[in-house]
């Protein structure tokens, strides 16, 4: 179960100063203690395996820096189930009790930070938002597909962040209000962009997208959704919308979407990503087609 590197032989230098008799006795004692410990561990593992209130996790392991882990493999963890336990809880339990080298990202544990998007039982989900009771056993936990694995469940997010930044994901406008005024948004307009503001940058959509997997330059659902959030914001003004559409209607922009709905299906915040992409496609057409 444990994937740690084989333990180093204990340092014997401290034992040299004591008498040979005591040394022997100590060695025997240590041996006995070790055997007992081993037995206890085996018993605990056996109990965990046979108990019916445990969950069987199969977790992807890979570490290019450790010799025994360079070849990717799956480790089995049997985690005692508590009501309301999520995949993240189970991973943390496994890390704390079985293998402290098990690596994964997590932070807030309430689906806001977007750190723990994982590939659980064949679909991209947030570990903290996925109840173990909703999954069939064994629960297969893998790092997000279509990204380089750094270690265990951690993937390299750099490309995703680059794409997010490419659409200028911040508010810009040329029409600032008067000095003592607020930049107000109508309720209707806020309602329009409401869902798109919920993105937590978890990269689940990008990982699920078949097109993004094949075309590295494709902006991806999350970035387009981010662009939607600002392009549809009326406070940004017409010329800024024009600028945003110019970014989006490039070859690797909105037109790469082939409406597989994979992103919409995996989005942990239920953002209608495909709908937003389609709306931006229509905006782009309206922008370029003028009959008058």
């Amino acid at each position, binding site marked *: 179960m444990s994937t740690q590197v084989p333990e180093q032989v204990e340092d014997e230098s401290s034992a040299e100063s004591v008498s040979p008799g005591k040394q022997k006795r100590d060695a025997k004692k240590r041996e006995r203690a070790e055997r007992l410990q081993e037995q206890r561990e085996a018993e605990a593992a056996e109990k965990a395996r046979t108990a019916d209130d445990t969950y069987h996790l199969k977790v992807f392991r*890979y570490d*290019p820096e450790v010799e025994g882990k360079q070849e*990717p493999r799956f480790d089995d963890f049997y985690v005692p189930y508590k009501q309301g336990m999520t995949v993240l809880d189970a991973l943390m339990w496994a890390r704390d009790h079985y293998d402290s080298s098990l690596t994964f990202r997590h932070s807030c544990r309430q689906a806001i930070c977007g750190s723990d998007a994982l*590939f659980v039982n*064949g*679909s991209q989900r947030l570990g903290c938002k996925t109840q173990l009771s909703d999954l069939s056993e064994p629960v297969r936990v*893998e790092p997000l*597909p*279509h*990204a*380089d*694995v750094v270690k265990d469940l951690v993937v390299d997010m750099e*490309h995703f962040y680059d794409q997010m930044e490419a659409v200028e994901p911040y508010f810009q406008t040329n029409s600032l209000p008067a000095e003592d005024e607020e930049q107000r948004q109508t309720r209707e307009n806020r309602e329009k962009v409401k869902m798109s503001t919920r993105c937590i940058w978890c990269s689940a959509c990008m990982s699920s997208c*078949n097109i993004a*997997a094949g075309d*590295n330059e494709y902006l991806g659902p999350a970035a387009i959704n981010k662009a939607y959030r600002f392009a549809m914001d009326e406070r940004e003004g017409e010329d800024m919308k024009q600028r945003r559409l110019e970014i989006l209607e490039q070859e690797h922009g909105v037109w790469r979407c*082939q*409406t*597989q*709905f*994979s992103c*919409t*299906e995996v989005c942990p915040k239920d953002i*209608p990503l*495909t*709908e937003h992409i*389609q*709306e931006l*496609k*229509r905006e782009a057409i309206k922008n370029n087609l003028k009959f008058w």
Partner: protein
Amino acid sequence: MSQSYNRGLIEDFGRWREFSAGMWAWIFHKFTGWVLVGYLFTHIAVLSTALSGAAPYTNTIQALESLLVVRILEVGLLAVAVFHILNGLRLLFVDLGVGLEAQDKSFYASLILTGVIVVASVPTFLAGVSI
């Protein structure tokens, strides 16, 4: 993205059991599209061999129709065309932003409708056309 090692079935078609409705719709649409393109070229090529008059044309058609395998392939062609048309309509609605929350249901509906039409057409096709 470059892969530093092989992650097995994670990245490829081996996970087809986990594909969702929208994904299947996309795959079938691509597949049927290519079949139709292939058919179109064969269609033109075969019929261009019989352009010398009315009689050779009729002979070619009758010779083709007399083959059971051609009649079975015609059922397949109908299935492919009907699905492509129905899913094309579905995609039209998706492009217009209409009923995106029901996209999976409309995919299943187009599958079922394709099945019904194809099954209903089997007797006609297998009996052959009497010209």
